[in-house]
């Protein structure tokens, strides 16, 4: 550590070095004095003999280790000064680099978390789910099975070494001061061992908990414990009243454990089958299995198909005529396929952005290197070794790279945080945690920093090797040796323009698509409507009469609340579907099945949603309360199944009602009204025929309420909850929200998220490209000052000069746009799944983004071009 000490005590070291050398001279002088020389002469001789003190001192210093640190520090000081002098260059390079690194790391991290490593479970890559597909109807499949089916699949398969199932159930937690609605899951024996995640607190469910007569227990989800129970650890061991049963909380699951997206998990005991039914019908369980080592999903599908054939004979109602079994990875099953495609688009976009960013940095460095050729030559002529020049440039590159990297890491961190917060709900698995991915960050850093070093160093090596004479003579007339590098710069710019066009084009298409989606006419008014699901405890709400005994007083109470204009019962959330049924219309012969959607509702349904009547009338209160078999149909139903005939007074049969747990044996309804079409398959899918009937005809099916308020609907949630509590304290509403909230969540959130992200990328890309075009044109023009001055002196009009410079820029831009068109069309295959109501080859979008790019590019050219026309010929010619 001697060198360290010396570094600290640098002045002492220097003094001692002086003293040592001084001593030598004194001794020498003393000898001359002894030999008889006069003092002055002796001193002079000794000094001459010793030679250049400073040079020796430097050599002595160089013998020491700490000296290298000093040289390094000096290199960095010079590099820093050089960059500070060229502040614009430094900022742009650092900004471009940081953006490339930050944006790509953020997006890649999201993709990696959401697509490749979404689940925190043991060996999650080999976890699969099972789907039964109806081969006759492409979009119909089920991924849930009867408990008996699940047991048969488990016993008879040869491809899984573990299988668990879950059943969702609405749980009402009755606390002293009100009810709390929670999502519960019954799970099968061995579930927690299967997923292999240790609990956060307490214990998981164990084998004994699933035994007959075991005390009822449950495990709470970490997020629910934090969000709804204030992370209170003393809750473990306490008893909670859940759906009227006293259950003991035995543990808090691991933070990312979210099987089934539930708030809590309860063991399915052998006594449970009686309880876990919907009326007379058994309910369906979700299934997850673990593939045996070496078994592929394909082999597993084949094995299950054989078992399913046998099962279809045992449970004929559960199986369509032609079906296939599909085994698919659990990770991919829990990610919405639409969002997966969006992620791939973002991935491509951010990759383009990283390329543009690196291209910009490369171009800036190349331009700077060309401009400094003379400087390198002078340094070399003054005796700087090649190593020294290269080291100097390395220090500069290092400063740029490290600043860019640090800013990039910060942007990546901020980007991941922001993305994790704004990713729409229900698009990624509940288990997925979006966090920064170290490996990805490292990759982006290597690409970005590598670009800096490559394009910083290659010109330096070239320059340090170059012919000094040539360089010193070259006065910047932009001819000769630099042509090759200019070609490289132009190529980089053309590529940047092309990539930027592809980004802009994508953003343009997303925007058109989003606008098209927003312009869809719903047929109903979403504003000022509050909705909530009302899960009724199955114990005492089974029949139509029981159901009516809850809703009839509730609706009456709600209507009397000030601020509520209308209140209605509903069976689905508009505009997202209804109950599918086969339909019969007497006197109409048809070969294929006639299908319709139907809704169970009360008389004010049409008033709440402001649905327009075209013909006939709505139900009366009496008709609903008496469960009269009357129906309102939509325009599509009338056109498709009645043609030109008047449907009022005609009868239709909704066959599905016969299959309900609380069935209707003669489901014939008299049509009393026709309403205008209302979206019923979301905004993007074509409308279905639809029928509304009084909710009182059956006790089956999930129910909810719709309330039209006169003021802000969210402010009415408490009042509505109070009326429900007053009607039956054992009932709680689930997810009370405005209709607009759901519309936004299910239809607009994802496209808006995509639009924002792609637009941000496209804007950043455009900014980077315009900077790139500007720097290249400005640089080329400045190299041609001499030539331009000469032209003006020889009588060229300033307009000609302007044209000349702009022509150069226009060439680059047009080449880039043409290549960009090709890139865009190549990307359209990925894009097409993300677009709605607009073609991936949309001409208007193409023309407008090309125009935008051209305009911005030409402005970037125009600034240096104008500067060129202001060249004073006499000063330009002197500019040697």
């Amino acid at each position: 550590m001697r060198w360290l000490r010396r570094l600290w005590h640098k002045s002492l070291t220097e003094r001692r070095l002086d003293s040592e050398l001084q001593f030598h001279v004194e001794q020498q002088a003393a000898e001359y004095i002894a030999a008889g020389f006069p003092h002055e002469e002796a001193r002079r001789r000794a000094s001459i003999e010793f030679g250049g003190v400073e040079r020796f001192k430097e050599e002595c210093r160089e013998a020491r280790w700490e000296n290298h640190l000093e040289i390094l520090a000096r290199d960095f000081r010079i590099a820093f000064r050089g960059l500070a002098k060229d502040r614009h260059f430094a900022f742009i390079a650092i900004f471009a680099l940081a953006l490339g690194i930050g944006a790509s790391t953020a997006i890649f991290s999201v993709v990696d978390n959401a697509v490749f490593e979404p689940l925190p479970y043991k060996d999650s890559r080999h976890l699969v789910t099972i789907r039964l597909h109806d081969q006759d109807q492409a979009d119909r499949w089920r991924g849930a099975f009867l408990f008996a089916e699940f047991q048969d699949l488990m016993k008879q398969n040869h491809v899984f070494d573990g299988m668990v199932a879950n059943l969702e159930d609405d749980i009402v937690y009755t606390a002293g001061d009100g009810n709390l609605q929670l999502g519960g899951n019954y799970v099968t024996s061995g579930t927690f061992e299967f997923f292999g995640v240790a609990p956060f607190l307490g214990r998981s469910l164990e084998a004994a908990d699933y035994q007959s007569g075991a005390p009822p227990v449950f495990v709470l989800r970490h997020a629910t414990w934090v969000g709804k129970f204030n992370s209170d650890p003393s809750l473990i061991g306490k008893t909670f009243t859940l759906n009227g049963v006293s259950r003991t909380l035995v543990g808090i699951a691991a933070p990312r454990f979210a099987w089934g997206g539930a708030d809590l998990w309860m063991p399915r005991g052998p006594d449970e089958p009686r309880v876990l039914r919907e009326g007379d019908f058994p309910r369906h369980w979700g299934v997850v299995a673990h593939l045996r080592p070496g078994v592929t999903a394909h082999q597993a599908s084949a094995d299950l198909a054989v078992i399913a054939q046998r099962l279809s004979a045992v449970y004929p109602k559960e199986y369509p005529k032609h079906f296939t079994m599909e085994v698919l990875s659990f990770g991919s099953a829990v990610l919405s396929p639409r969002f997966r495609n969006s992620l791939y688009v973002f991935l491509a976009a951010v990759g383009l952005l990283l390329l543009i960013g690196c291209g910009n940095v490369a171009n800036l460095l190349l331009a700077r290197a060309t401009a400094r050729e003379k400087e390198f030559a002078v340094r070399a002529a003054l005796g700087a070794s090649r190593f020294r020049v290269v080291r100097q440039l390395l220090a500069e590159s290092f400063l740029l790279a490290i600043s860019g990297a640090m800013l990039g890491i910060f942007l990546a961190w901020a980007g991941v945080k922001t993305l994790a917060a704004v990713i729409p709900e229900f698009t990624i698995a509940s288990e997925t945690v979006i966090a920064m991915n170290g490996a990805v960050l490292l990759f982006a850093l290597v690409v970005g920093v590598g670009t800096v070093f490559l394009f910083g160093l290659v010109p330096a090596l070239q320059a340090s090797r170059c012919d000094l004479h040539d360089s010193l003579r070259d006065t910047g007339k932009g001819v000769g040796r630099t042509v090759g590098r200019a070609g490289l710069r132009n190529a980089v710019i053309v590529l940047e323009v092309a990539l930027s066009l592809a980004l802009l084009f994508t953003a343009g298409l997303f925007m058109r698509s989003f606008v098209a989606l927003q312009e869809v006419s719903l047929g109903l008014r979403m504003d000022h409507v509050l909705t909530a699901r009302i899960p009724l405890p199955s114990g005492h709400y089974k029949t139509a009469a029981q159901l009516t005994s809850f809703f009839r007083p509730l609706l009456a109470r709600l209507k009397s609340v000030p601020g509520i204009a209308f209140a209605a019962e509903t069976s689905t959330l508009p505009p997202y579907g209804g109950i599918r049924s086969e339909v019969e219309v007497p006197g109409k012969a048809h070969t294929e099945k006639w299908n319709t959607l139907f809704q169970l509702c009360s008389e004010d349904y049409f008033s709440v949603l402001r649905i327009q009547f075209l013909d006939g009338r709505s139900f009366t209160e009496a008709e609903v309360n008496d469960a009269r078999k009357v129906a309102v149909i939509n325009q599509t139903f009338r056109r498709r199944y009645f043609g030109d005939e008047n449907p009022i007074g005609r009868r239709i049969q909704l066959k599905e009602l016969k299959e309900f747990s609380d069935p209707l044996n003669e489901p014939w309804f008299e049509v009393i009204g026709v309403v205008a079409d209302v979206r019923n398959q979301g905004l993007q899918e074509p409308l279905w025929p639809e029928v509304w009937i009084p909710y009182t005809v059956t006790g089956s099916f999930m129910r909810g309420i719709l309330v039209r308020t006169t003021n802000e609907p969210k402010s009415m949630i408490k009042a509505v909850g109070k009326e429900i509590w007053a009607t039956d304290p054992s009932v709680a509403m689930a997810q009370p929200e405005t209709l607009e909230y759901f519309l936004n969540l299910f239809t607009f959130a994802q496209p808006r998220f995509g639009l924002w992200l792609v637009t941000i990328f496209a804007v950043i890309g455009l900014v980077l490209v315009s900077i790139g075009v500007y720097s290249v044109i400005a640089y080329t023009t400045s190299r041609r000052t001499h030539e331009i001055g000469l032209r003006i002196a020889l009588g060229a009009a300033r307009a000609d000069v302007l044209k000349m410079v702009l022509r150069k820029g226009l060439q680059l831009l047009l080449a880039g746009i043409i290549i960009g068109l090709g890139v865009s069309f190549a990307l359209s295959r990925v894009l097409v799944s993300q677009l709605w109501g607009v073609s991936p080859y949309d001409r208007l979008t193409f023309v407008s983004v090309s125009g935008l790019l051209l305009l911005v590019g030409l402005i970037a050219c125009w600034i240096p071009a104008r500067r060129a026309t202001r060249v004073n010929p006499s000063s330009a010619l002197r500019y040697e």
Partner: protein
Amino acid sequence: MPQEKAEFLKGTLDMLILKVVAGGPIHGYAISQRIQQISKDFFQVPQGSLYPALHRLEERDWLEAEWKDTSTGREAKFYKLTRKGRAQLETEMLNWERLSDAVALILRTAG
């Protein structure tokens, strides 16, 4: 007649310094004097080489230095051989003997 004075062979200066210092603590001026005296003025030690060499040898831990008063009462930097330096000196001397033997042998017998 400076032109007749020999240039040092590469590396020999280090060896000579080590050898001189092996005789006991000694300062830089005395080292140059000793080398000149012993070689009967054959080697004129250039100060420009001596001091960087001393600092280099110190950096390699072959020499260690101490500031002490000289007989005249002035403080000077005295160099001393370290254990590592002694081992180095022995190796270099052995190498030198082999080299000079070999060169002598060639000069005697070749041609």
